[in-house]
């Protein structure tokens, strides 16, 4: 009888130690996990109401689940349209905790390369946004790269992604992005956005006139709300260091008018 009790006690202690070990490994995983989300924040999104907060919270759960998900980069070699670019080159990254990257799993990002980034959550692939690599030096770890812009969501010791203002905006943007539909149409069914400057060199003080055209090459009627160019288009100018230039005072007034 005493022998049986001894065996049972031994089994219980062993199980407890295994559970504790697994828990420690899990905690360590949470502490070292870091998800890099590359995306464009809705710059005009400044007021978040309770409904949006609720939706953001729901998306936060998705992000929690996605920490061990997969990030997929589509390298854009010729930007005709975002949709066509998907067809060009696909680089897949499998997300693993920090420190476990291997050279073979890392893409070699270079300055000004442009990527469309997708996030896979439970086998559902979500378009995050496109991004431009903004640093000039080749790095060996994805966490050393700088994108324009870069957001990092880090879990705390309780395994929770802190919900900051910028995170809320990212998550809401993430929710909006899920409505993008890339796979349902053929290449010929997307509109084209063309931009040109007329020439490539400008002197100081000379106006730099950007002309851009949307050509509807689809079989559908497109709806463009609010067609004031300064406000309804996302226009970004970057210098040779990859830094995005700020709006001028006039630009701020025209981009975000005080109504």
């Amino acid at each position: 009888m005493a022998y049986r009790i001894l065996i049972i006690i031994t089994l219980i202690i062993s199980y407890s130690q295994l559970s504790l070990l697994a828990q420690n490994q899990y905690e360590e995983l949470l502490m070292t996990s870091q998800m890099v989300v590359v995306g464009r924040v809705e710059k005009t999104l400044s007021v978040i109401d309770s409904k949006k907060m609720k939706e953001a919270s729901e998306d936060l759960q998705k992000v929690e689940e996605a920490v061990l998900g997969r990030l997929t980069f589509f390298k854009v070699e010729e930007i005709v349209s975002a949709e066509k670019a998907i067809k060009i080159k696909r680089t897949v990254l499998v997300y693993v905790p920090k420190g476990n990257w291997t050279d073979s799993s890392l893409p070699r990002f270079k300055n000004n390369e442009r990527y469309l980034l997708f996030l896979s959550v439970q086998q559902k692939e979500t378009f995050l946004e496109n991004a431009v690599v903004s640093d000039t030096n080749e790095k060996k770890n994805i966490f050393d790269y700088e994108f324009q812009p870069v957001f990092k969501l880090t879990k705390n010791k309780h395994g929770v992604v802190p919900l900051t203002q910028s995170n809320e905006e990212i998550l809401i943007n993430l929710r909006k992005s899920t409505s993008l539909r890339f796979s349902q149409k053929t290449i010929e069914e997307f509109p084209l956005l063309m931009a040109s400057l007329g020439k490539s060199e400008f002197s100081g003080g000379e106006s730099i006139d950007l002309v851009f055209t949307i050509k509807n090459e689809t079989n559908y009627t497109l709806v463009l709300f609010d067609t004031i160019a300064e406000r309804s288009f996302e226009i970004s100018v970057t210098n040779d260091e990859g830094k995005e230039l700020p709006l001028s005072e006039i630009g701020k007034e025209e981009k975000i008018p005080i109504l």
Partner: protein
Amino acid sequence: MARETVYLVPGKEITWQLDLRRLFEINKAGNYSVKVERKYFLKEDIENNPKFNVISSKLVKFKVVK
């Protein structure tokens, strides 16, 4: 300033023009690049299930000299 909505039928195009120097702090000589992005909807989706799509332009490079 009135807001305007454009319905762009198949085969048609619409063009805008603006001065980048007016909008951005382009004060120094150097190399720059500009890109444009735009969200749009399909008319057939508007009433039932509005979903936006995004199109992007090519990266256009230019140089500013003194």
